[in-house]
């Protein structure tokens, strides 16, 4: 008897464990909502998203409620006779025009406020130029001159080839890892100057609340400031169709404390000076100077 029940209990336990929040973090079932993110803007966006969501839920309950009520109560099969005189009612029509307008204003005001904050790119403490290529990103720290390319890491690249035979589940951060992440300090207003070299791309990191198209001939501005206590690695990817490798140009932002960031920047600066020892750099792949766009294109074409 016990032998019969034991496997079932084990299965049930496994099921319960898999439903627990801790396990959910590992599986995809819990991935159903926008992240709150780690910047003031991303949190405001999240709040706006949830506000609008609950407004929609409330409207839905009322509207769907009346529909379902009508479908249940006013059934021909129950012998209900239609009230054919109910075809027009100016008062109710005015009411259900004005109420939505008021609700919309209630949502539009916080949206506009947040939008104005998003658009305020004044007084940055650090400026980074972001250039999109088919298929990778280049980051240039304008104040210090540090510059490097960032593209899909080799393990993801190998596993994502057609019929590679490699299980993506065995690759850490499959399609979400790059060779050289963008390193930024926390608690700092960072201005991104975003452009592209070939076609349109879009730079998106959900946790930062930043999405901005990278467009040839344009320099778009976006800013973020990671909360001072939220050092960590944040991942995103290109969100504008840019050709064959569109799915394979992730973005990784490594937010460090100001001290750690400064140390990293100093070592990068030293490494990227002409004649610096090649192995000291984390920036340029293969220890050489940053690849030219042509080299990058060639490297990407391999994938």
């Amino acid at each position, binding site marked *: 008897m016990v032998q019969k029940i034991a496997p079932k209990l084990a299965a049930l336990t496994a099921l319960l464990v898999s439903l627990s929040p801790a396990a959910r973090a590992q599986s995809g079932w819990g991935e159903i*909502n926008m992240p709150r993110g780690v910047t003031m803007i991303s949190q405001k966006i999240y709040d706006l998203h949830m506000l609008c969501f609950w407004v929609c839920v409330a409207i839905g309950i009322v509207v769907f409620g009346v529909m379902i009520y009508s479908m249940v109560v006013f059934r021909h099969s129950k012998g209900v006779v239609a009230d054919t005189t109910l*075809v027009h009612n100016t008062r109710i029509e005015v009411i259900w025009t004005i109420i939505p307008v008021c609700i919309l204003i209630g949502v539009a005001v916080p949206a506009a406020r947040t939008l104005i904050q998003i658009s305020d790119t004044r007084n940055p403490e650090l400026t980074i130029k972001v250039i999109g290529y088919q298929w990778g990103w280049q980051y240039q720290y304008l104040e210090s001159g540090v510059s490097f390319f960032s593209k899909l890491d080799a393990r993801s690249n190998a596993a994502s080839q057609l019929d590679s035979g490699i299980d993506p589940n065995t690759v850490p951060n499959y399609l979400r890892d790059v060779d050289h992440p963008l390193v930024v300090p926390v608690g700092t207003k960072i201005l991104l100057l975003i452009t592209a070299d070939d076609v349109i791309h879009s730079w998106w990191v959900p946790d930062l609340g930043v999405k901005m198209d990278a467009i040839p001939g344009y320099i778009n501005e976006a800013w973020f400031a990671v909360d001072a206590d939220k050092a960590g690695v944040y991942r995103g990817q290109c969100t504008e*169709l840019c050709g*064959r490798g569109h799915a394979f140009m992730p973005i990784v932002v490594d937010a460090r404390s100001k001290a750690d960031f400064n140390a990293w920047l100093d070592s990068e600066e030293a490494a990227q000076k002409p004649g610096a020892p090649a192995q000291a750099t984390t920036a340029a792949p293969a220890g050489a100077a940053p690849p030219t766009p042509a080299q990058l294109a060639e490297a990407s074409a391999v994938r």
Partner: protein
Amino acid sequence: MAEHTHAPAATSPAHAVHAVHDEHDHRPHGWRRWVYATNHKDIGTMYLVFAGLMFLIGGSFAMVIRAELFEPGMQLVDPQFFNSMTTMHALFMIFGAVMPAWTGLANWLIPMQIGAPDMALPRLNNLSFWILPFAFTLLFSTLFVPGGAPAGGWTLYAPLMVQTGDAFPMTIFAIHMMGASSILGAINVIVTIMNMRAKGMGLLRMPLFVWTWFITAFLLIAAMPVLAGAVTMLLTDHYFGTTFFTATGGGDPIMFQHIFWFFGHPEVYILILPAFGVVSEIIPTFSRKPLFGYETMVYATASIGFLSFIVWAHHMFVTGIPLAGQLFFMLSTMLIAVPTGVKVFNWTATMYKGSLSFEPPMLFALGFLFMFTIGGFSGLMLALVPADYEYHGTYFVVAHFHYVLVPGAIFAIIGAVYYWLPKWSGKMYDMRLATWHFWLSTVFVNVLFFPQHFLGLAGMPRRIPDYAVQFTDWNMVSSIGGFAFGLSQLLFPYIVLKCLRSGEPATGRVWESAHGLEWELPSPAPYHSWGEPPSEALIARGAAH
């Protein structure tokens, strides 16, 4: 007046006159009937059959997409081919399935509903249909040319689109042909409605399907030439050294998006306005109660049509357009929720205190009502610019527009066919099977598209052939829903063919409380719908509001 009083029974003297008249028609037979077709019903039938065929082809492209996305890793197709599939799926579904289906329904119904014998411009009608098979043969053949089918998305954004291989000029020429066909069809609808209405059929007596198509036709005429201009500029950029959209030559890639979406946003209303018309016909019939707020419905449709021209940049919130532009387009977009809400409330009020029954057309109309509203909610969320910074370009957008297009436009088209098929064919279809068709479609369309909201919010971009592993579970659910939804649709041609082959004879009225001129004709409707115009009394009876 007696001869004008068409009783529903098919044996009335007036119908006997029709029948005799019909037999004297010189209608060509065999292939000539279709190739030389000038009859609105024949052309309508061809449009609908064509749309059904494109729906199956476009659907099979979607099956490739869902199969590749079933699990992470690249198992089936090359990423470039995957991009071709998303592009071709959209082009086939929008220009091949939904738009021709609406034109087919317009052809079948508008003359019958306004008391006319046929469309005003029958040869133009023939031309506008026969362009389409050539356009789509050309587009389909791009799958076999060097460089593959277009893969830059149906939005054809420059400069990516210019990287297309040999398919580039073929795609553009195909789009030109589709646009020409749509414009000709729209001209025909407008001329017919303006000139062919029976005496007594005032504008505010027209059925809502006629009204919504009338407004749609104006949107088509205004929007399609803009698309033609955009793709022509792409063509000259590629072959004649112009740099309209090339930054290095002084051009502007964003200008393409402005021009494209100036067409593209009215286009989405072109796809949905006739659906509003269909639902406004079906719900009153099966609620046994006239449509609530007929005139408001007309004005709401017209205002949606107008607003559709001043919201285009909400597709471009993350392109770096200025703050003032973002605010304007956010507010104008939110404003659309007002007339759209009025419509949903009016349909609900039509059901309230009605006497409802749930035949297949009503089921599809109710499916439309619920799920289109869900698509409307996500549309409202997308209108908020700050939130759009997270939603834009993700599966949340994919979920949104599929909710308004599949259980929205497509359900309305299917509902329309189940509503009018007995009138067209004179035969009833298998209602039990059609009910099955509804429930299978409804369950699986939600399994297919609802999880895509989650995927988008959790960070999965659209138009990617491969994804990070945390998106696996909901993609599997979505794919299973997709395969099941696709299979369920095979019931549709089966039900229609079975009806045509062996359906029970239908009555003239078909549905006990159907109102409108088409129900005053016998079933099947005579070849030349209203050989003599209907009497004003008949028109007044049809216009029950």
